[in-house]
């Protein structure tokens, strides 16, 4: 032992011991949750810039350009009104069916498009991920921000429609702001979740439309939510706790004078909405963080 003190202290160490002796860290090691959040916060400018860039790029090949941000939800609403309002005549027991339908549609579409884009937010950006080092959650989060910006455009359209169909402007409208924020947090969580799942299984992209369509029919977007009362008791309870139904009901309550609602109690709506935002947001974030090292592999 006395002689070894004279030679290079690194002699005879294994690679791992050598690294430990000099305090080297494992390349691409997953940081702690707190450290990860700190780094993510430092990348907020990137998230915002990337979200803006995606928004600009999304319609860059269309002649009407950004106008599609407004035209797409409008066309959607027109098609559904034709089928559910005119052909199937669903509007008999709903006072302002156009307002009812478009509110549900626009609120649902916020989550729908975020989830669809989120499924590919990792798998579609592999080039960037394999080239540069940054907290990967930046990508799904910027997807959420892009969708939020598109939501703001469609909200302007929605308020216009609601006004034209004869709803008064009331203080209740302000409730829309916290409701949309809660939904945005919930969306961020779901987007983080599907981003990690979509990074591994590219089949998710094919399955997602079906899941989303089922979710849409379970959220009372196209018809009166009173239809759910005919279901067996447990199913009605299940639908009552459906996060999207909750966010849609909150928006309908805020904008429309007397919409038919499944949840009678406003307090319960807020509590469930906030609960979903909390559970979805934190759960999705932790789930995504746990896979941080794997995203480059494809």
């Amino acid at each position, binding site marked *: 032992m006395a002689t070894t003190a004279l*030679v290079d202290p690194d002699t005879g160490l294994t690679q791992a011991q*050598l690294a430990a002796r000099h305090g080297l860290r494992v390349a691409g090691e997953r940081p702690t949750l707190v450290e990860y959040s700190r780094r993510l916060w430092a990348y907020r400018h990137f998230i915002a810039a990337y979200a803006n860039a995606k928004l600009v790029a999304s319609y860059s090949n269309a002649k009407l350009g950004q106008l599609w941000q407004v035209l797409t939800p409008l066309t959607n609403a027109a098609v559904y009104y034709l089928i559910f309002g005119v052909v199937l005549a669903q509007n008999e027991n709903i006072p302002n069916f156009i307002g009812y339908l478009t509110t549900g549609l626009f609120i649902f579409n916020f989550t729908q498009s975020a989830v669809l884009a989120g499924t590919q937010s990792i798998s579609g950006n592999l080039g960037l991920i394999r080239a*540069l080092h940054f907290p990967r959650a930046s990508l799904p989060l910027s997807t959420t921000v892009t969708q939020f910006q598109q939501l703001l455009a469609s909200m302007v359209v929605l308020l216009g429609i609601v006004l034209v169909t004869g709803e008064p402007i009331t203080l209740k409208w302000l409730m829309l702001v916290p409701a949309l924020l809660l939904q945005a947090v919930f969306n961020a969580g779901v987007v983080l979740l599907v981003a990690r799942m979509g990074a591994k299984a590219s089949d998710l992209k094919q399955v997602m439309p079906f899941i989303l369509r089922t979710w849409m029919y379970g959220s009372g977007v196209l018809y009166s939510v009173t239809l759910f009362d005919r279901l067996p008791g447990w199913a009605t309870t299940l639908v009552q706790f459906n996060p999207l139904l909750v966010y849609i009901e909150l928006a309908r309550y805020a904008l429309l004078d007397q919409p038919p609602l499944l949840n009678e109690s406003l307090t319960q709506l807020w509590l469930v909405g906030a609960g979903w935002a909390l559970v979805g947001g934190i759960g999705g974030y932790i789930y995504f963080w746990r896979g941080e090292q794997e995203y480059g592999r*494809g």
Partner: protein
Amino acid sequence: MVDHMQATDEATVSLPVLTQERIPTVVVDDAHIIYRVHKGATGGTTPVAALRRLVKRTSAPNVREVHAVKGVSFTAYRGEAIGLIGSNGSGKSTLLRAIAGLLPVNRGAIHTQGQPSLLGVNAALLNDLSGERNVTLGCLAMGMHPDEVAQQAAGIIDFSGINERGDFASLPMRTYSSGMAARLRFSIAAAKKHDVLLIDEALATGDKGFRKRSEQRVRELREGAGTVFLVSHQLSSVRDTCERTIWLESGVLRMDGPTDDVIRAYEAYANSK
């Protein structure tokens, strides 16, 4: 490893050398890297076969696993410039990405000092957006502050020379020629200072004038960096910049030693093929 042991044996003879302890910056320990590639539509993918795979939980036939690096070990020290050579597909770029922490290792481990940066020309950006916007995004993605980005943006575009033939910086990147796009990507990547710098074929980008500028820029970056890795097929640029060279062949480390020896052996191997 053998080289490394010999070096320390010599050190026991001349004790004064020991006062300058060599500080490792990158320690690669028996690293294996496997990545999956989707081959796209291939024959023989009937629905029945797909269902059977789902039940048996085997991976799909159109996904192939590429074992790109097979058990490589070496240690890089502060102040070294190390060349990585080998034929196409020998795993050089994959190894660099793993050192940069961009690709995970499947077995073994890679330890690094600080956060190594990969300077490559493959940084994929948004093709639908203008060059200017790509500069901003790229710099932010490298972790720069917005003020810093605003200061450097004009310099980066000048350096890339994309505006030499009219105002291309405001056009979408999909309208660029491949050389222009590569030049812009290099200029973005080279705009930041680095601890451990990994350079992947970046010196071969663009025309002669740009190559001169970029070599100068890499030299500046080297002076600031602790350790430099250089992947290149141009043996002359490895000879010019690196004193030590590692030769990879089919994902296995063939040789690690002084540049002249390794390149001589590599050339003999390449000519005999």
